[in-house]
């Protein structure tokens, strides 16, 4: 069975995620409205601007719908998506969706001039993976049930807790689909 995975499409790198999902053996869908979540087996919260996305999630009533969706389905957040999923965000009162027991720092590596590419090892996924970090966050600390998948200079940049997966870098900006394949596997197991 081919699993159906949605990509939140309020703004950001949406089409790249859909393409990567299709290459990784899933069917990709664009999610703009609450009804779009019906029948999906998993969801990706893409890179973009987390501040913008949260405002739009509230405004367009997608926030609660995604929280409900996440109670039984896998979710993968990249960069801004990671921030949306964190339970703790430095300098901000309260979380957004609060799905993963992680404490994150936004724009942790600096502004755009500090954005970078680096070679990563990602547990269960890949050795030598090109991580593209754009005004990226990192994870300062993780809770007990969280498995760290990758670190860069001592900071956590990818992790998993049950059906939730996050990365501070952008797998959708490379042609390497190993991260997407891993997530598709998670969705298949859950479906």
């Amino acid at each position: 069975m081919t699993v159906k995975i949605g990509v939140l499409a309020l703004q950001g790198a949406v089409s790249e995620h859909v393409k990567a999902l299709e290459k990784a053996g899933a069917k990709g869908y664009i999610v703009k409205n609450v009804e779009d979540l019906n029948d999906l087996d998993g969801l990706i919260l893409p890179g973009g601007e987390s501040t913008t996305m949260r405002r739009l999630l509230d405004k367009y009533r997608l926030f609660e719908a995604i929280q409900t969706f996440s109670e039984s389905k896998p979710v993968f957040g990249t960069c801004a998506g990671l921030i949306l999923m964190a339970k703790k965000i430095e300098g901000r009162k309260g979380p957004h969706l609060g799905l993963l027991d992680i404490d994150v720092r936004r724009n942790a590596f600096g502004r755009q001039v500090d954005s970078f590419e680096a070679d990563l090892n990602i547990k269960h996924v890949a050795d030598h993976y090109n991580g593209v970090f754009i005004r990226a966050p990192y994870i300062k600390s993780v809770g007990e049930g969280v498995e760290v998948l990758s670190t860069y200079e001592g900071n956590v940049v990818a992790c998993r807790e049950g059906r939730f997966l996050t990365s501070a870098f952008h797998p959708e900006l490379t042609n390497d689909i190993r991260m997407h394949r891993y997530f598709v596997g998670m969705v298949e197991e859950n479906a």
Partner: protein
Amino acid sequence: MAIAQTGTEKVKRGMAEMQKGGVIMDVVNAEQAKIAEEAGATAVMALERVPSDIRKAGGVARMADPTIVQEVLDAVTIPVMAKARIGHIVEARVLEALKVDYIDESEVLTPADDVYHIDKKAFTVPFVCGCRDLGEASRRIGEGAAMLRTKGEPGTGNIVEAVRHMRLVNSQVRKVVGMSKDELMVYAKEIGAPYEILLQIKEAGRLPVVNFAAGGVATPADAALMMELGADGVFVGSGIFKSENPAKFARAIVEATTYYQDYERIAELSKGLGTPMKGIDMGTLDASERMQDRGI
């Protein structure tokens, strides 16, 4: 582990990918920047004056006072862009030193160099440039621009030029995709484009960088129109803060850009926005008043 690389093509172009489907708003101070962020802008462009005021003021338009740029950088968490004059290497270096997230080498300001654009590959900070056709687009990409936008005719509140530029670039991209390699070389000569860039476009079937609409977006319907025509996102200059209720207007533009094919929604959000900026008919502009003819 290899050492991290900053300022690569991938991180420069990738930054623009994160802006897709979004609205980038011109602001002249911290207060406006916060209104823009609150309304859901994906980035702000810090300026001393919006294009319609630059038009009115006349004289030489330059990079904004660094005080304004810093004020905006400190006010919001979304990315901050700023404009440098075409060919003004030092203005661009100053903006890079201030750590703005993107530089717009812009025809809205008075060009500092009437022959050359900045060698943008030499910078760590990424650049966005305006274009009216695929020749200009390819030359800017060749110089290292990591994002494009239509030139439109800034500060006029008239969408006609942005429409013309978006349609022309996209039709030329389609043409290139269908060409054989020998035809491509002659076409490169005709439109003054680097052959290698056209080859990349042909092979990828699309521009290698994101292309936004800019110049003359005055209503939510204008923003949606540009998305319909294939824009990756929208810059709004004078339109927002020259309108009667900027916060409401800004939210409406953002929503119309995301849901550009949901016409009932656009009808709803367009109600009671007050008068948009007055606008200028192209026929009434002298050649010397046309910003799009600068830096081609």
